[in-house]
């Protein structure tokens, strides 16, 4: 993350000075969500948020905590199976949006003879493959190039917790987006989390108490916007209660 945060509003022009200075091999500038290129060389914003740059990847985007999840290709999501139609499952990414389709063959080792049987309202961890403007999004539980699941597939036990979209994105970042509470708790008790970009976190652990403690800790960090100090205090409190 950039040390200095600039807040932008929709329609702002991005000055040349705030563009990233490429340090990696990539020379072309990548525009992320919330930015728009108007030829020849104007870049304007379409949403409000914090302007973020990544010098290594030569990328620039607007970081915002939006309320509605819009599927983007490559996103990891936790989807709820609603029903099975013809050769695919209808899934919900959020309760308020139309179904996403998950082909029955998009599972590891699935063939026409051995299809996965998933009951309605079961959960799957999946990746968004396509999302056209006028078509429903398609998701998959298998990496198309290797045919392996790569960790995707049905979620069996545990519990899910709703978090904000910004929090889900932070958890998925390599640096964990400054969420240290999980590491602090994880040093003492074992648990497993799965994060969907659609604002759902799945937690699995040894017992009910652990799962609830971890899930609620994540929600608390999200709702109260806890910093490093607050998270340390929270982790201590959680560990004491376990």
């Amino acid at each position, binding site marked *: 993350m950039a040390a200095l945060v600039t807040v932008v509003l929709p329609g702002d022009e991005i000055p040349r000075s705030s563009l990233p200075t490429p340090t990696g091999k990539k020379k072309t500038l990548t525009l992320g969500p919330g930015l728009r290129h108007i030829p020849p060389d104007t870049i304007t914003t379409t949403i409000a948020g914090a302007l973020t740059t990544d010098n290594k990847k030569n990328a620039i985007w607007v970081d915002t905590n939006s309320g509605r999840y819009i599927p983007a290709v490559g996103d990891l999501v936790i989807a*709820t199976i609603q029903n099975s139609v013809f050769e695919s499952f209808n899934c*919900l990414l959020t*309760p*308020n949006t139309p179904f996403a389709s998950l082909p029955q063959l998009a599972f590891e080792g699935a063939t026409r003879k051995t299809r996965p049987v998933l*009951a309605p*309202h*079961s*959960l799957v961890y999946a990746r968004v493959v396509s999302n056209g403007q006028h078509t429903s999004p398609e998701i998959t539980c298998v990496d198309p190039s290797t045919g392996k699941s790569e960790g995707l597939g049905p*979620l*069996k*036990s*545990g*519990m*899910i917790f709703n978090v904000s979209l910004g929090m889900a994105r932070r958890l998925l970042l390599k640096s964990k987006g400054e969420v240290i509470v999980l590491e602090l708790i994880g040093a003492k008790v074992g648990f497993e989390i799965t994060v969907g970009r659609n604002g759902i976190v799945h937690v699995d652990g040894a017992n*009910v*108490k652990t*799962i*609830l403690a971890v899930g*609620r800790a994540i929600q608390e960090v999200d709702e109260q916007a806890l910093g490093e100090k607050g998270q340390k205090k929270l982790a201590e409190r959680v560990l004491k209660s376990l």
Partner: protein
Amino acid sequence: MPREVEISIIEREFIQNALQEGIRRDGREFDAFRPLELNFGDEYGVADVQLGKTRVIVRISVDVVAPPPERKFDGVFQIVTEFSPMASPAFEVGRPTDAEVILSRVLEKAIRRSNALDTESLCIIAGLKCFALRADVHIVDHDGGLIDASCIAVMAALQHFRRPDVIVEGEKATVLSTRERDPIPLSILHQPLSVTFSYYEEGNLFLVDADLAEEQVRQGEIIITMNRHGEICQVNKYGGAPVEPLDLLNLNNVALQKVKDISKFIQQKLDEDAKKRDAGGLMAELSAENAR
């Protein structure tokens, strides 16, 4: 018809397992309400209740109409519920869901038919003119416990509301504006409040104020409406697994305690609001001095 989005299988199993171990999803006690908040609007008769994430706004309005011929000495009082599609994807305008029908029936029984409001006091001239009071219940956010929250909101709004004063001369009635004469509070006979109990494990486990996920897992619910003197207005049980009679008596005791607490809370909020509105009497209001 849009249906309530059901929770997933693993959530259902987890909530049941946790309840068996005596743990609720949000760490509450079995007989605890979620944090309750109550705010009043700038106008009289607007109450905004937040019960956890559930939010209900009630607005009371008044009009002068001719009373129905069969009830000449009564005013008119009606409660109208409206579920905003903003609250839940399952709600749609013009198509009441089961929850909406049950809510309006329960409110009707709890508040209107238990005579919480003295409708005779709304009569202006017998057979000719009366006040028509209308309580609009807006569900703005839905996370379970709608009945309890709505009941609190309606009762708080009724107690907060002030109707304009009237002068009757023969057959002529003049409604005075709030500037001419201070508006009058409604005459409320008692304050019924509802407590919903959700039960699990064939009626062996009772929860107070279940949230939306817990509501979806429950085997049935019992709605008890009573006032703080322990007078029961209704006991409702819409199907579900059978319950021991003795449990029902225990629930009444729990409900009474909850109703007492909530009544006290509403009264405290009303007092705070009254203090805020009190400008220091008529003389202070008429004074030309201002705080410059």
